[in-house]
């Protein structure tokens, strides 16, 4: 496990999160102390331990591939910030 500073600006870009310079500075200090605390996990030898992603003994839960009613179109668009002709409106993606 690597100690040290998080490059908050870079990680915020990965997370698609616009931060003010003040927020970046404050987060950097706070995350430094949280990461310092998390370092204690390094004390444990986990070489032969299987990871737990989930605590339930279920795998590959499937259902029949059948057409069923789903959320109606107008309901799906109900909370859209911008919409037109039954579509979500987004900024231009391709020049």
């Amino acid at each position, binding site marked *: 496990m690597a100690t040290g500073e998080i490059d908050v600006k870079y990680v915020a870009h990965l997370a698609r*999160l616009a931060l003010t310079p003040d927020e970046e500075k404050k987060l950097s200090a706070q995350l430094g102390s949280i990461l310092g605390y998390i370092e204690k996990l390094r004390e444990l030898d986990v070489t032969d331990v299987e990871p737990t992603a989930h605590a339930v003994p279920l795998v590959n839960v499937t259902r029949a591939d059948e057409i069923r009613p789903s959320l109606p179109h107008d309901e799906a668009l109900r909370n859209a910030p911008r919409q037109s002709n039954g579509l*979500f409106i987004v900024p231009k993606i391709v020049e």
Partner: protein
Amino acid sequence: MLNQLTISELSAKLAQREVSAREATQACLDQIARVDGKIHAFLSFNAADALAQAEKADKAIAAGENKPLLGVPIAVKDVLAVKNQPLNCASKILGNFISPYDATAIEKLQAAGAIVFGRLNMDEFAMGSSTENSAFGATKNPWDITRIPGGSSGGSAAAVAAHECIASLGSDTGGSIRQPAALCGCVGLKPTYGRISRYGLVAFASSLDQIGPFTKDVRDSATLLGVMSGVDPRDSTSVPQPVPDYTKALTGDIRGMKLGLPKEYMIGGLDAEVKSAVAAAVKKFQELGAEIVEISLPHTDYAVATYYIIATAEASANLARFDGIRYCARVDGADPIELYGQTRGAGFGPEVKRRIILGTYVLSSGYHDAYYLHAQKVRTLIRNDFLKAFETVDAIVTPTTPTAAFKIGEKSDDPLQMYLSDIFTISCNLAGICGVSVPCGFTKNPKLPIGLQLLGKPFGEESLLRIAHAYEQATPWHKEKAAI
């Protein structure tokens, strides 16, 4: 004072036509009008809709219908979808979002006849331990309004403790039901992972989240658990286990049952009054005929660190959906990337940003194995500690929290100290087991509730509730009411 009744008391009065559902609902609305200015448990509620549901329930009662929650007003944490009601997760980012569908747990409550009303305050996206992270202002503890009610389901706990509803729903990812229940003096149950469908619960950490009830006594928790449990094709992690009548488990007889006391939970930061209340509870269990044995959960000290890697990693992925395209209060940008960043930067509060950054970091290239995979392996060790303990004991007894409710503002500038207040509740979610907090006494000055936590085997809710109920019935704590 109909709003002060339990579900079982109100149901009996409704069945005997002693009172109407409309009167009971009106009593809750009157109490909200009287006290919620001070408590701020509710973000919003629709009184006309609640009364219309109550009238429908009264007609059903008059027609001789008999359902477990018919005419019982139940309020809901602002993280569960209720069709045509607002859903904000106490965040600015969701704007004027209105749920297009019902959560499965809500559908089941409604099918059982409940009056589902109100949106209860919480820490934004269920991230926090004090409800101070709500974008709409903190909730206050009904026992002392200068103190926090706990969190993240602080509104759910405070609303039940202040008798603004008969019972409520919350969600628990690392203690968010049990901790506020303890600090507000009510019963809070986190069922086994997979017991209640998470469909319609806004995801925080998908492998840890579970819906559960806040109630005035253990019997009501058993009733609500029975109504809400069961496999659901819309949640592939819900488990096809039979759903028993949990109220039948409440026999009052716990003779011969074995309860484990983990030595690792007697930590330095444990408040003296909390410690002595738990010691008195242990003595009470012995009087009731249970056997107490010391056990060891050796990886306890690593639970908080493990949790803050796994929970933030999952949250960073889950909260990616709040991007301003299909919903959310959009802040425009020149291109989609800028739009996402601006929308999320303006919409999320400080704690949510902190956790998204931490979670993104522990999953990022070069750090994934060192942090996330490592934490998942430690999670296995923590889970194995519990499974081993449950080979010899029926349940585990601990304090729910290291201290009673702290002052508003006391820990809000120090995230790590806030995280450590969840030290006793976090392991339960990592291990995927069930847990309940029941009142076990009060501090002297000021008078604040203390919670006792019982942890049970996976799908061991019957034994867990039997033990909790036997203790509750042998002690006076759950009958005390906050003077508000």
